[in-house]
Structure formats: structure tokens, C-alpha cells
């Protein structure tokens, strides 16, 4: 029998994978991919809780998260392409122009 806990565990495993990706990778494109993984992991949790409590609010939040992810990709990729045209690299270390 699959319960809410199973879904929350898989959600947190996927979230951990995405978080490892965000911290580990030094490439801007990989950072965007990891962000998508994070958002998807959260969506699984929302859908699971929505079924558990027989309530639609979780699914509604998942829809809005998908919309936010879509617009994030559009703007983020635009900036990425612009940066690549300027510097011909998308390494994160190339963006330390302030020397903090």
C-alpha cells in the first residue's frame, strides 16, 4: 500500500538531487536544469497532499508553480544566451565581476 509518506519521501529524494545539482555544478545551464528538478519535486508533494486531504488547493498550487517555471525558463535562457554571446562562456566563475 502506498501512503502519503511514500510520496513525500520520493519528493524529498528528488529535492535533494536537485539541491546537490544547484550546489555542485558550475555551469549556468546545469543550474537551470537543477531548478526544474526542484520545482518538480515540490509538485509531487503538493499533488500527494492534495489527494490525502481530498482538497484541490495542492493541485492549484502545482499549476501556478508550473507557470512560474515556464516564465523562469524564458527569461533565464534569454539572459544565458546574452551572456554567452558577450563572454562565450556560461561558467559561473566568469560572473564574479564584483570580486566580493
Amino acid at each position, binding site marked *: 500500500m502506498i501512503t502519503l509518506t511514500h510520496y513525500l519521501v520520493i519528493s524529498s529524494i528528488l529535492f535533494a538531487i536537485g539541491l546537490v545539482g544547484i550546489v555542485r555544478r558550475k555551469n549556468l545551464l546545469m543550474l537551470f536544469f537543477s531548478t526544474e528538478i526542484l520545482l518538480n519535486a515540490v509538485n509531487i508533494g503538493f499533488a500527494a497532499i492534495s489527494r490525502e486531504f481530498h482538497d484541490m488547493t495542492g493541485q492549484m498550487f502545482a499549476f501556478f508553480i508550473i507557470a512560474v517555471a515556464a516564465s523562469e525558463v524564458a527569461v533565464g535562457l*534569454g539572459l544565458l544566451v546574452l551572456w554567452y554571446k558577450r563572454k562565450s562562456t556560461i561558467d559561473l566563475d566568469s560572473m564574479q565581476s564584483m570580486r566580493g
Partner: protein
Amino acid sequence: MYEVIAFYLFSFLTITLFSIVVFSKNALYSMTALAGGMIFISGFFFLLDADFLGVVQIIVYSGAVMAVYAFGMIFIDTTKDVKETIKAKRMIYTFATAIAVLLVVIVSSPIISKNIITSTSIIDGVSNSKMVGYILFTKYLVPFELTAVMLLVAMVAGIVLVSKKMDISLSMKSDYEAKSEFEEGVAK
């Protein structure tokens, strides 16, 4: 029984594919694995009786988002492996796992303790997509319209950012050649 088999199958596939995304050296492999993982995530939504969400997941992520990534990668040379210098590996894994578990505990503790009231409960006998329509166009109408405006703004931003200097091809030339040509174009 079928739910158990499907759940473990989808879990295994998504974890494997997303691990490939995070640990692969080649950006093209990561993108392909991500597209596959998105499809299997929608399997979870179908298991959770969220049919409409599953369909939206396939259409938006595997269709739109992956297509945008594929078009974005036209501009970037993906045949080269990504060069990275990674320090302090063990600390990264420990912290990432700890933060993920902590977030899940924080968010799910009110749910586990049943200290929660349903406001928009699912009516039995009404299909999922009908239910989504009822709730989205009554209670969540204003956020829905704001989302539409946000997507429009994002589209305009994407077009404005990418369409500058569209006539100069960067991916077909060597880096030095393309860079000098681009700088000439800027100087003009």
C-alpha cells in the same frame, strides 16, 4: 497492487534520470534525461488522481520547456564537455541532503499532525479536469489572470533578450572568430 508496482517503477526511473541530469558531464545528455524524467514525473500525477496536472506536466515541461532549452542550446556549443572545478564534495552532499530533509519536515509537519482544514474539497463523481475548472475560475481567478500577465511579460523579455544580434551566427564558427566578429558588430 498495480499502484505499488507503478510507484516503485516511476520512483526508480525518475531518480535514475535526474541523477544523470545532475552528474552528467555533457549538457546534451542532461537535457535528454531531464525530458525523460519530466514524463515519468507525470506518471506520479496520474497515480495521484491528478489527471489534468499530469497532462499539463507533459505538455508544458516535455513540450514547451524542453523545446525552449533545445532552442537555447543552438547558441551554445554542447559537443564540448563542461569543464568544472569542484571543491568540498562531501560537505555539498551532506548539506544538500540535510536541507532537503529539513524543508520537507518544516512543510509537512502541520500536515502530519492533521492540523489543517480543507477549503476546496474534491466532489466525488466530478472528473478531475472539471473540478480544476470549477476551482480555477472561481477561487483562483485573480491569480490565474496575474499568471497570464506574468507569462506575457516573460515572453516579451525572452524575445527582447535573445533577438539582439540575431544575424551573427556564433555556433558555426570558432570562438575567436566569432568573438572578433561580434565585437566588430558592436563597434558598428
